[in-house]
C-alpha cells in the first residue's frame, strides 16, 4: 500500500511517500502507526504521540480503528490547519 506523509510528519520521517507491505497483524490505522514507530528514529519521532496523528484512506478522513486494504493510499498527517 502507498503511504503519504504531510507537514512535520513528513519532515521527521524524511520522505513524502513510500510503498510498504505491512506485516500480518497490522489491520487498522492505529496498528499501522504503532508498527511504523518501530521502523527507525525518524518514524519514532514522527509517531511519538499517536493521538496527534490523523489519517485518510483513499482521500477520505478515517478514525484510528479504520481497517486497511491492499492497494489503499493511506495518508498520515497532523491535525489540519487550513482556512
Amino acid at each position, binding site marked *: 500500500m502507498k503511504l503519504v506523509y504531510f507537514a512535520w510528519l513528513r519532515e521527521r520521517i524524511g520522505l513524502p511517500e513510500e510503498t510498504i507491505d505491512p506485516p500480518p497483524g497490522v489491520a487498522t490505522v492505529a496498528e499501522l502507526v504503532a508498527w511504523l514507530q518501530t521502523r527507525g528514529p525518524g518514524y519514532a519521532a514522527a509517531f511519538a504521540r499517536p493521538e496527534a496523528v490523523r489519517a485518510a484512506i483513499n482521500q477520505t478522513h478515517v478514525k484510528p480503528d479504520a481497517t486497511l486494504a491492499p492497494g489503499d493510499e493511506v495518508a498520515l498527517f497532523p*491535525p*489540519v490547519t487550513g*482556512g
Partner: protein
Amino acid sequence: MAVRVQLEDFDPGAELARLTDGDHSVGAAVSFVGLVRDLAEGDRLIAMTLEHYPAMTQAELERIEAEARARWPLTDCLIVHRFGRLTPGARIVLVITASGHRQAAFEACAFLMDWLKTKAPFWKLEETASTRRWVEAKATDDDAAGRW
C-alpha cells in the same frame, strides 16, 4: 456551486459579482475572506506556506460544500482556497453563500468556515526572522465545528 483550490490570488468583489449578477432569486449574499496576518505568536511573520494534499483537497472541500447545501437552501456557493507561500496581507480563503434570505446565507457561511478549519487538508508553516514553525490546530476550531 463551485470549489477552487489554487496558487493564484482571487478578487473577492469580482467573485461576488459573478455569483449574484443575473440571478434575481438571490436576496442575500454573505462573503468571508481569510487573510495572512503579520503576527505569529508575538513575532513578525515573514511568510506563511500552505501545504496541501492535492489528491484530497478538492474532493474534501466539495464534500463540505455539499453538506452546507443539504442543510440550508442556498441558491449558490463558492469556496476558493489558496496554497503555496503567502506573505502578510495575502488572501488565503474565500467563502461566498447566496440564498433567498439572509439567515441561511449567514449560517451556511459560518458553517463552511468552521468545517473547513477542521477538515480541509492544508497545513500552515510560519516563517519568522528566527524560526519556522508548523501551526498547531486549535481546540476552539474543533469546538466551533462541533456546534453545527
